[in-house]
């Protein structure tokens, strides 16, 4: 477990999940997916295309905020990332609130683009660093976007995996269920079961998540972290010690 930060392991895992695609888009509040996408592009000599929401430099869109969604509707976004205040075993995500919607106990920021992108991006990778029975639940209170739909609903896209601080789940779209794919170094299957609120499948032997290579870590730390600071200055400072240019009045 020494030698890399949890965020670096998660980003490395996400890089493997992205695979060989043309265009990866990264939405709001997604520093770890952004780290993964930018590192992958650096390693690929400029490919895949990366669209980093909130960035000017890592963003080729020229048609305003709608272009990400139009682009996805055209089938031109291959990978996207979503999180959830709650995520359940059917792949439903909740970014809105807990309790009765009209009278909630907890309020999250809101659904962002999930109510659309979850349906049209072929490979949606879920990430939720905090792996607990609070976040991974049997059934979400509010479905910002469902893990699956009836067959007659137009849905070329959906979830393929869920990455947490403890493990990696694969998602089976036909069965609408997660399968434990690997457990991160230093964590155990029992611990995953203990901390997961939903049922999931698992093979008899669960592999350990591959650790990031020295080369990947070097790329992340030396080349990508400073780029990341444009959009995620606090994250870059906390994880990589990148100095943030502060504006004073």
């Amino acid at each position: 477990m020494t030698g890399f930060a949890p965020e670096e392991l998660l980003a490395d895992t996400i890089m493997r999940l992205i695979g060989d695609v043309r265009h990866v888009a990264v939405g709001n509040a997604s520093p770890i997916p952004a780290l993964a996408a930018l590192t992958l592009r650096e390693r690929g000599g400029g490919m895949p295309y990366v669209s980093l929401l909130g960035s000017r430099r890592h963003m080729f869109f020229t048609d305003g905020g709608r272009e990400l969604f139009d682009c996805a509707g055209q089938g031109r976004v291959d990978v996207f990332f979503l999180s959830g205040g709650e995520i359940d075993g059917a792949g439903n995500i909740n970014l809105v609130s807990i309790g009765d919607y009209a009278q909630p106990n907890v309020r999250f920021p809101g659904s962002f683009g999930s109510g659309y992108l979850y349906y049209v991006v072929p490979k949606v990778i879920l990430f939720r660093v905090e792996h607990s029975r609070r976040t991974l639940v049997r059934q979400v209170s509010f479905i910002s976007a469902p893990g699956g739909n009836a067959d007659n609903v137009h849905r070329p896209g959906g979830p393929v995996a869920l990455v947490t601080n403890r493990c990696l789940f694969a998602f089976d779209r036909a069965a609408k269920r997660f399968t434990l794919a690997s457990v991160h170094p230093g964590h155990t299957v029992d611990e995953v079961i203990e901390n997961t609120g939903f049922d999931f499948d698992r093979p008899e032997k669960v592999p350990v998540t591959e650790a990031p290579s020295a080369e990947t870590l070097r790329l992340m730390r030396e080349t990508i972290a400073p780029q990341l600071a444009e959009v995620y200055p606090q994250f870059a400072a906390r994880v990589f010690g990148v100095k943030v240019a502060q504006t004073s009045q």
Partner: protein
Amino acid sequence: MTGRAMSQFAPNIDEAVAAIPDGAMVIVPRESSGVPMEATRALIRRSVKRLHLVALPTSTLQGDMLIGAGCVETLETSAVSLGEFGPAPRFTAAILGKTIQMKDATCPALYAQVQAAEKGVPFMPLRGLIGSDILTHRPDWRVIDNPFGNDDPIVLLPAIKPDVALFHAAMADRAGNVFIGRDRELLTMAHASARTIATVEKLYDGNLMDDPALSAGTVPGFYIETVAVAPRGAWPLQLLDHYPADGAHLADYAKAAATAEGFARYLDQYVHVKRAA
């Protein structure tokens, strides 16, 4: 058509927002596209009430402050947070305390609804949404059977026609043309809204429309009712290509606004007394 014949320049920020009446539907952009924070402070100073605030498609500090100051009756957006500085405390408190009416959306739905107004059509179709509780809680959205499909449900979203579009941009010329560069949603907002008020960092000498490159990124003065010059008008948020966000200030805000009292002190310090330039 509403609006005066030609764009007017407001002598100061308070006059620029004076024409926004209580109860108006006001549309504002996401954090990276030019948030009019100086104008927001002026609105709070003026104690504007009962706004129907549409944040296209999300909001951060601006929405939180307007809500905290009691200016908002209805909020229509896809998310409010302080980004890396955590949840938006006044927004969260208002939802939990049921002091505002929330119309939860998802980003592309809002873009489509504003585009519907831009195009003068009553609605726009959108994929996705089916099976989401966003749709469940939006009786103003409709599901129809796609007439070009076969057993293919699709959602129709009604047009959003704001009374006022309000944003901050890099520069304007004396004809009221406003340069927005790649932040094209500002153009869509101006097209969709009855009136547009823009604050800008500075004046541009000459006519933006005469330059083949600059004109491509310009909201024509035709759509602009009022312009006001407000240097660093997005502070403490960023204006891309110009200045970054003031992270230290935002961290202080997040801390202060965690309580109603702290938020009130923040307003006293930064809003009710005009900050020195």
